[in-house]
């Protein structure tokens, strides 16, 4: 089933690789945002099936963006997966406590990213 995913990441390379992966491997529609603020607007406008959200971004970081998504009735129910290059256990516990659906790690395998997302969200 074709899904619509919003990728929010300030790093152009990661955003483009993730988009390529989800579009070409899974055939999903991808919407992209390069900041937390842009991501909030795109989420409300496009109502994606899920959001892949980077943690470390300048300005509004991932956790803050997540909290803002949850505050807005239009985006509160959209599943969010955090994407992070942080591997330390304390960071992971802090992210898990936010209430996101899953935490995915960079670097990811472009061939299996969509499978990881689908599995985390019970789509497969």
């Amino acid at each position: 089933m074709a899904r619509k995913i919003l990728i929010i990441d300030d790093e152009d390379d990661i955003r483009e690789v993730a988009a390529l992966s989800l579009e070409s491997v899974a055939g999903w529609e991808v919407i992209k945002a390069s900041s937390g603020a842009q991501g909030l607007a795109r989420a409300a406008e496009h109502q994606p099936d899920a959001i892949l959200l980077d943690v470390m971004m300048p300005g509004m970081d991932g956790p803050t963006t997540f909290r803002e998504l949850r505050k807005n009735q239009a985006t509160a129910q959209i599943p969010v997966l955090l994407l992070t290059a942080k591997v330390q256990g304390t960071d992971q516990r802090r992210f898990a406590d936010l209430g996101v659906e899953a935490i995915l790690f960079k670097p990811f395998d472009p061939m299996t990213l969509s499978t990881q997302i689908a599995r985390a969200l019970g789509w497969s």
Partner: protein
Amino acid sequence: MKTTSKSGTRADAALSQAMDGLWVRFLPEIKERVAVLEAAAQAASEGKLTAKQREAARAAAHKLAGVLGTFDLTRGTVLARELELTFARDSSPGRDGGAKLAEIAAELRSMVESRKSSA
């Protein structure tokens, strides 16, 4: 990458080719990040590393750690993580530490510049 069918093989090849295109597109940005690390390592080995330069190096290393493995440079991610952790510490790496960091940065550059296409 493992494949299970001819169509799977074609899909893998198409993705690999597209990934190579992205690598070429983003290589200047990736090299810039390596240059930030080289400059910071050099400054550290001369005892001149500033807090601002250390933070820039930490951020560059973090970004490299996140992206290099995605392009099949798994060891690049390991090396970048080592640099990120070092630059994240409050204390200066010192001259000896700076020389070690310079070695790691040089290995990263070599790896980045010699990456072969995967298609």
